């Protein structure tokens, strides 16, 4: 997609001191960044830590981000560099290995701290993500043709509202509302899976 970077408005907000705008970018990219790091680092326990470090570094470096590339391209590069650096530190200091961390956890009688990322590879987590995936697919199938086409052109093809309006032969405002309604409909099906029992909220 050669359209202007969809993240540019949020990046601008961050540069003006809006930390929440940066959190919005984190929520958007956390899964992709963790998958990327997961491909580079075998120890699944380290992935969230390196992803955290990536976002903190990106936040610090953001004033230097000039928008020559898309924000995600820039973030991707930071993630790769952060992962490489962690791997090198791991070689130098092999104490921080998976087994060391595991045994430390066993010694600890207390349950994990509430806001510590849970292990991405627990059977629970795997099941939860499978349920999410099938719920999304099911919900998309259930959409009306107009809504499904709009959300697909946006999310999968990466087209702009203008391009979608042209393809679907309707005003841009209609595209905007169709995409919103499609998201609403899919999210409604996901809600039972997304709602939290433990009461912590976004």
């Amino acid at each position, binding site marked *: 997609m050669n359209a202007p970077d969809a993240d540019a408005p949020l990046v601008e907000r961050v540069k003006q001191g809006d930390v*929440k705008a940066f959190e919005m970018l984190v929520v958007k990219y956390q899964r992709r960044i963790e998958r990327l790091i997961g491909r580079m680092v075998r120890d699944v326990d380290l992935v969230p830590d390196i992803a955290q470090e990536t976002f903190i570094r990106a936040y610090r470096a953001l004033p230097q981000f000039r928008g020559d590339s898309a924000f995600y391209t820039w973030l991707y590069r930071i993630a790769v560099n952060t992962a490489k650096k962690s791997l090198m530190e791991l070689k130098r200091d092999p104490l921080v290995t998976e087994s060391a961390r595991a045994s430390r956890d066993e010694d600890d009688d207390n349950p994990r701290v509430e806001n510590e990322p849970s292990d991405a590879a627990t059977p629970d987590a795997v099941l939860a993500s499978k349920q999410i995936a099938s719920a999304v697919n099911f919900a998309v199938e259930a959409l009306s043709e107009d809504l499904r086409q709009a959300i697909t052109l946006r999310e999968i093809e990466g087209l702009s509202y203008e391009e979608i309006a042209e393809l679907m032969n309707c005003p841009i405002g209609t595209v905007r509302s169709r995409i919103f309604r499609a998201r609403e409909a899919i999210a409604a099906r996901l809600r039972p899976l997304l709602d939290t029992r433990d009461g912590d909220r976004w």
Partner: protein
Amino acid sequence: MAIDGFDDAARERLSALADGQLDSAAVAASCAAFHRDPQLRADWHAWHLIGDVLRSEDLASDPRHDRAFGAQLRSRLSAEPVVLAPAASTSDLSARAPSERGRRGRWTAAGAVAAGVVMVVGTFALVRPDASPPAARIARAEIPAATVVSAPGPAPAADVQPVAIVAGSQLIRDAQLERYLEAHKQFAGTSALGVPSAFLRSATVDSAAR
């Protein structure tokens, strides 16, 4: 789930922001709404999760993990100094921002060049103590000219002028320069600045270390 019409409008704007299709005036309001409203934060997460899953099923993730990740990052961010890049000025100023930025940039550049000239001339006076009286005279002659080039600010001249004071053929370093050298340690330890010391010193340090 339409709670009321107003609420839906705010959510539709957030949806447009997710696609980068919200005009800049509305972006700030939408970010503020995100800040206030937990429902909007939950929507934002759900919509992006949906987009990720549509693109690639292996991006489906446990929402509890996402939430924990977000919570941890928020607490780390709260310890960070707030990022501010004033050059990227506010969106409502964006129409006139480029010209303003350009002008500021040009003055900054002129100032930097002038400071550079003063610096070079000053250094020249310093590194050649044997020739210092004439060199110093040149330096003093040059500085006002350089200041005229940098024009608008009268300040630099007063600040930079006493780079070196030459008494007879003796070289006396001023306090400001001392502080500068203190901060830039590669020159520290060279009591005699009369020689191009940085290079010599690194050689002696190397040989001493061996």
